């Protein structure tokens, strides 16, 4: 394995981490706001806030890690993506800011403030949509070089069915991942009413997620045949992903083993995500940028990797501590004892 592949694998892993924890987080915020409209907040709010509270800031770090890392490992991306993504990413940042701060305002400042809850619930749902546009752009064809400067063709981008399939997938996947996770979490908290409701949400969003994912592959065939052909080479990964999806839905449907249901869901997304990433190789941006011509110098690459390993030695024990205290601590999950400052 060369340094280029090592670098992109690390970054892709963090992006995967962000997509998973972010989806749980954003979906939870949305379900919380939705329950306020439908008058079901009595059922949902408690379990959702119990999960969300200690971890919200951690979610954001995964994203920061990804974009700082990609500039470090592949500095040329700053030129291509930085120049062209001003508008979509700015929207993403603004939504992230609203989501993060209003979440804190509601949770720590004015518990139960409806306006704040709606604001962060809605903002959270739009974040995946606005950030997923970057994936669309990476397929190429939306950026042209004018006098040596990359320019984004907004009209083409927003009239492309590929863009909208990816947007739909990002939203439905967010709700699906979140609902499956929260079903398990509510079940662990022995909150059967919440678990039942969340299980219904999970089943509702399972099919749209799969249809949208299939739609993207179909769109790619027309749009970027090179990538489409590469995807064919990785068919076992997508097959496994699909089987895991079937497994999750089966367990949810038969109301069994929610822990395994979530594990299989994580597996489903991991196989699809890494399969997609591997078939994108070697391009970071079709057809301008590959991981080879944008890679940093060896001195920087090696020092980044050394720092990364040292950092992990610090982070992994800390993350385990968080999980033991909040995710796997029965008393905390069931809401016995409130130790908030």
């Amino acid at each position: 394995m060369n340094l280029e592949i090592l670098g992109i694998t690390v970054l892709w892993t963090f992006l995967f981490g962000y997509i998973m924890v972010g989806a749980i987080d954003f979906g939870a915020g949305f379900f919380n706001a939705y329950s306020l409209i439908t008058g079901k907040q009595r059922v949902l709010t408690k379990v959702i806030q119990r999960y969300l509270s200690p971890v919200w800031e951690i979610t954001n770090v995964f994203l920061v890690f990804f974009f700082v890392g990609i500039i470090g490992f592949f500095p040329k991306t700053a030129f291509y993506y930085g120049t062209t993504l001003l508008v979509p990413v700015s929207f993403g940042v603004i939504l992230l800011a609203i989501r993060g701060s209003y979440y804190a305002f509601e949770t720590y400042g004015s518990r139960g403030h409806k306006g704040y809850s709606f604001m962060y619930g809605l903002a959270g749902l739009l974040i995946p949509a606005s950030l997923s546009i970057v994936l669309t752009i990476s397929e190429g064809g939306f950026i042209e070089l004018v006098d040596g400067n990359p320019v984004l063709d907004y009209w083409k981008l927003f009239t492309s069915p590929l863009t909208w399939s990816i947007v739909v997938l990002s939203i439905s996947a967010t709700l699906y991942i979140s609902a499956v996770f929260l079903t398990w979490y509510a079940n662990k908290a022995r909150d059967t009413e919440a678990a039942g409701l969340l299980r219904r949400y999970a089943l509702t969003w399972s099919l749209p997620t799969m249809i949208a994912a299939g739609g993207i592959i179909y769109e790619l065939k027309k749009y970027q045949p090179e990538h489409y052909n590469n995807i064919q080479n990785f068919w076992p990964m997508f097959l496994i992903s699909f089987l895991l999806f079937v497994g999750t839905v089966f367990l949810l449907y038969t109301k069994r083993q929610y822990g395994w249901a979530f594990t299989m869901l994580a597996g489903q997304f991991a196989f699809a995500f890494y399969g997609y990433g591997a078939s994108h190789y070697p391009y970071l941006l079709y057809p301008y940028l590959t991981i080879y011509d944008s890679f940093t110098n060896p001195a920087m690459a090696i020092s980044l990797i050394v720092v990364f390993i040292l950092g992990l030695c610090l982070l992994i024990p800390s993350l385990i501590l968080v999980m033991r205290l909040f995710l796997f601590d029965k008393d905390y999950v069931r809401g016995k004892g409130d130790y908030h400052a």
Partner: protein
Amino acid sequence: MGNEEAVFFSRVLTETTLSFHIIYATIGVGVPLMIMIAQWVGIRKNDEHYILLARRWARGFVITVAVGVVTGTAIGLQLSLLWPNFMELAGNVIALPLFMETFAFFFEAIFLGIYLYTWDRFENQKKHLLLLIPVALGAAFSAVFITIVNAFMNAPRGFDILNGELVNISPLLAMFNPAMPTKVAHVVVTAFMTAAFVLAAIAAFRLLRGSDHVYHKKALFLTMKVGFIFSIGAAIIGDFSGKYLAEYQPEKLAAAEWHFETTDKAELILMGVLTEDNEVKYALKIPYGLSILAANNPFAEVTGLDQFPEDEVPPLYIHYLFNLMVFIGMWMSLLSAVFLLGQWRGWKFVASKWFRWLIVLGGPLTMLAIEFGWWFAEVGRQPWILRDIMKVSEAATTSGQVDSMLILFCLLYFVLGVGSIVVLRRMFRRNPVEKELEDRHAMKGRDVR
């Protein structure tokens, strides 16, 4: 939109984001240390007041951290969005501290979550206090790493440019550049100082607004003590910064001091106005002052602006920014020194209304000094984004939508600024100290009044 406009709006947007972010970032770096000190004193003295002080500060801190985190994410992304050419170069040479910063931030975020949700969960209070150490360290090191990147922009090292290609890259040399020691120390120490004086202002304000509770008096005394110590630290490091500038960025020092001609026995110019022919009027001049600041020697020669081409001299209004920053710093040292002396000697006036109003004013003033300091640091580097290597005008994006993004972000910062103030006020209004002390008294069944 022409490229000049893109450069202009990129500068304005970056400046707006940084000016807003730095308020929350400074609090974010400084307040964990204050919480730690209060909780430590509380445990040592077995005094509920200090413990509650730590707890209430921690609650307010979460709100400021949230805004700090999201605006920090904004500036992190804006660097690439607005200055893509700079970031492409920077990514090759100075990506290491940026990368390290994410780890510091990660570490801080994890332990802040744990710390907030484990009050009273441990039998031994000291265990809970231990959880705060990684928060304070993570916050301080975030500042250290980011400031290293800024230091690099002032004194780029660790690479050569050969035929337009970057060669001989050494990430460590780039990190440990000559600007780094003074800059990092100055940023961290002034963050501690500012946090202390902002918290002192709140305590003084509560005392002025009717509450005569000893809780606020303890808070005021503690914060003024810490503020005083760090303000002295800031002054000493500021002096070293002057010497750094004289040696490595003489044009920045000369512009800040309106020092036009290279001379020895240079005088220090305070305030004043500049005529059209660059004559200084109405200024307070301290003989030998600049030579002492630059080299610790009243007879030393100080490089003037005559040594630099006109288009490489930063705007001269930075003189005021520099002066105001220094004045506020010195004023706060003096104010806190008088307060501490007064407490010690039993002078009545330090508990008087007007003196407390001065302390209240000190909070926003110190924050203003932070702003002046950063404006001075950034404008004083003009026209360079990377000194002697890349100009700001070469670094900016070619995108045509920067102006509309500027409007959107201004709206965002307005919403966040107002929101955070409203929430903080409501949070502490609804749950005043007196009430909380009574609740705790009832809960614990011992005297915590």
